[in-house]
């Protein structure tokens, strides 16, 4: 059994309630931080811990915190990004639904470290029922004196608000999230300035993922060095993985970073192998926007080393033979899966979610979807694969926010690793219905 930090008490009955949560050591970090630690010390501990942003980009959290501008007399904000919209990712929902107090505890401690008097949870509209759970938990915390004025008798006061979004993927991008939080249309801002300088209402703001903030209490209680011992290399700590697809035991797993991908897929502790004993075909390791990898490349890197569940190992080989850990949306595909159809689903999603501000993403996502649609329907034209490749290349890196990249990467990787399948769809449309093309490709 690997070490559990976030999900340690997940099976304790009634852990949703404040009393049970406190009996299991909850809110100790608030007490410790507020009464015995200076804000800078906490930031320092988080830096030492090597904790990296769990939302997808993997940016070191301590570093992000230390970038926060601290002008005199200006409010600072902590915003928790609970707009978990990446297809294949559902870890934050699980965490907030089952054990909401760990997030609130993390928020109080982190806000103290950042000097923020107010923090917000921006939660996606589809998680409305989770917002109710969070609000109930916040109310409990207020009643117990853990929120509000002079928390635990110290002179630190803090308020938490929950804001429900309307369900747009783009609002998970931090600047679009801030726009939406301000009540405007959720369009990403053009950076610079970054939120650390001018964020919510023009004030310095830190935007962190739910899981990141929920990891802070452990770091405060046990020290950054202790947290850094878990995991491997620069991928410290534990990570929640949302496992889905053709596996025997889909669900949210907390893993110690550094276990092998093979272990994660096949061991009984985690995914429990491929459904119905079929063969593994491909894996999307970190949510729909990261490159898809075929079975041989996800289990072993190009150099022949076993691939590990960590930021570095998964991205080993760059995008040519590697992928990314992303947000931890681990989607497994067995041999019966059509990669082209799967890609069409992704492309349709990104087309639907593009905000429409910048030209490459607005026009390119729609174009890619249309081409993929015609390929899937059996009307693909010769040269469509090359055209798709060219379009994605012209979107990637040329957009305001990472949505353009997120739309381009799956297309690029699917063509890179499964080009034959695209050609099969285009050259033999009559065979699509019978799935013959897939069986042949596998054998």
């Amino acid at each position: 059994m690997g070490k559990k930090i976030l999900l340690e008490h997940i099976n304790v009955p009634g852990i949703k309630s404040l009393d049970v949560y406190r009996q299991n050591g909850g809110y100790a970090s608030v007490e410790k931080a507020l009464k015995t630690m200076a804000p800078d010390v906490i930031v320092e501990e988080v830096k030492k811990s090597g904790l990296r942003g769990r939302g997808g980009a993997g940016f070191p959290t301590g570093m992000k915190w230390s970038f926060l501008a601290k002008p005199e007399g200006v409010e600072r904000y902590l915003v928790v990004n609970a707009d978990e919209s990446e297809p294949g990712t559902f870890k934050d929902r699980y965490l907030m639904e089952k054990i909401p107090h760990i997030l609130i505890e993390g928020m109080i401690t982190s806000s103290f470290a950042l000097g923020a008097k107010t923090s917000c949870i921006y939660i996606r509209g589809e998680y409305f029922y989770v917002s109710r759970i969070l609000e109930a938990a916040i109310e409990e915390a207020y009643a117990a004196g853990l929120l509000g004025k002079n928390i635990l008798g110290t002179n630190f006061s803090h308020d938490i608000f929950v804001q429900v979004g309307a369900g747009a993927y783009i609002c998970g991008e931090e600047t679009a999230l801030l726009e939406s939080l301000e009540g405007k249309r959720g369009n990403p801002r053009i950076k610079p300035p970054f939120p650390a300088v001018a964020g919510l209402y023009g004030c310095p703001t830190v935007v962190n993922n739910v899981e990141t903030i929920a990891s802070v209490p452990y770091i405060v209680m046990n020290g950054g060095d202790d947290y850094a011992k878990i995991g491997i290399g620069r991928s410290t700590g534990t990570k929640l993985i949302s496992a889905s697809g053709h596996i025997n035991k889909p669900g949210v797993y907390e893993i110690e970073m550094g276990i092998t991908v093979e272990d994660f897929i096949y061991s009984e502790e985690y995914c429990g192998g491929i459904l119905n004993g079929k063969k593994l075909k491909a894996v999307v390791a970190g949510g729909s926007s990261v490159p898809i990898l075929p079975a041989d490349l996800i289990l072993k890197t190009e150099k022949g080393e076993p691939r590990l569940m960590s930021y570095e190992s998964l991205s080993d080989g760059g995008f040519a033979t590697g992928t990314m850990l992303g947000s931890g949306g681990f989607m497994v595909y067995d041999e019966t899966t059509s990669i082209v159809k799967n890609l069409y689903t992704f492309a349709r999603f990104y087309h639907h979610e593009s905000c429409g501000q910048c030209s490459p993403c607005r026009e390119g996502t729609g174009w890619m979807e249309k081409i993929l649609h015609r390929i899937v329907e059996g009307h693909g034209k010769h040269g469509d694969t090359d055209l798709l490749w060219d379009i994605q290349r012209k979107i990637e890196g040329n957009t305001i926010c990472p949505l353009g990249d997120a739309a381009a990467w799956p297309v690029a990787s699917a063509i890179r690793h499964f080009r034959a399948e695209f050609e099969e769809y285009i050259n033999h449309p009559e065979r699509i219905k019978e799935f013959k093309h897939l069986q042949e490709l596998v054998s």
Partner: protein
Amino acid sequence: MAKVTIDGESIEVPDGTTILQAARMIGGDNVPPAMCYHSKLKTSGGYCRTCIVKVSKGSDKDPRPMPKLVPSCRTTVMDGMEVQNNTSPEVLEARRGVVEFLLINHPLDCPVCDQAGECHLQDLGYENGAAKTRYDFPRRKFNMIDIGPNIKMHMTRCIMCFRCVKTADQITDNRVHGMLFRGDASEISTYIEKAIVNDFSGNMIDVCPVGALTDKTFRFKSRVWFTKPMDAHRDCKKCSGKVALWEKGNEVLRVTSRKDKWGESEEWICNECRFDKKDIKDWVIEGPRHIDRHSVISLNHYENVVAKLKIDIAKQQKQIVDKK
């Protein structure tokens, strides 16, 4: 002050200048094209991505190149920065991509579009576009909406530069239009077909880089290159009254603001000057307007043609000498 080098040419500019502004100060052929940036509008730019450039050296302090291509209109210069525009094949290719994206859903109805001849998208497509489209799907359509008596809107031609939105935000007292919907279905519209009525709404026509917003009083009157631009002014209580008249014979066909060589309005004018004063007696004529812009619009102005020829010949001579 910061020293920046763009395509090998250096210039000292004040801190806070953007790469695009610095390039415009240098002038010449190496100025990145811009569709959504407008020098008189704050926070404009960054959307269309045509002005992207490569920063091959960040600054003297931090010489690392920037990892991605950056929009030159929204990136400020640093001391010692080195920028590649036309000298970078990567930039030119990305720009061709952007132009292709802008054109795939554009109706290409230039023969019936009043903007033809002074359209930024035409110029951009001419300079950076492909001869043939690779897009073989039906082009996007929108329902025509009426936004009032003076301005004609064709959403199909729009490239989403947000300049009209920023104009309404910054020079009128109330903005009633904006972006509706999302992605490639997004459109500029007024909510429930409200008319845009205020004294300065006409400036939206001038800032529109394409034919999405055109002057209803000039609709189908003449191609712009058959009209004669004149500088003129009148005593106006609302605006400076300094305009450009576009005449045919002795008839004033349209009134616009005076635009600089980048096609961007120098001063805003009011709707009274623009739409109601169509009699030559209303105006004090200053003389023919010198159009500096390199576009079809300036083609019937001999001075420009001659100047262009001189440059072209000089270039060719230089190339011959270089070859030898």
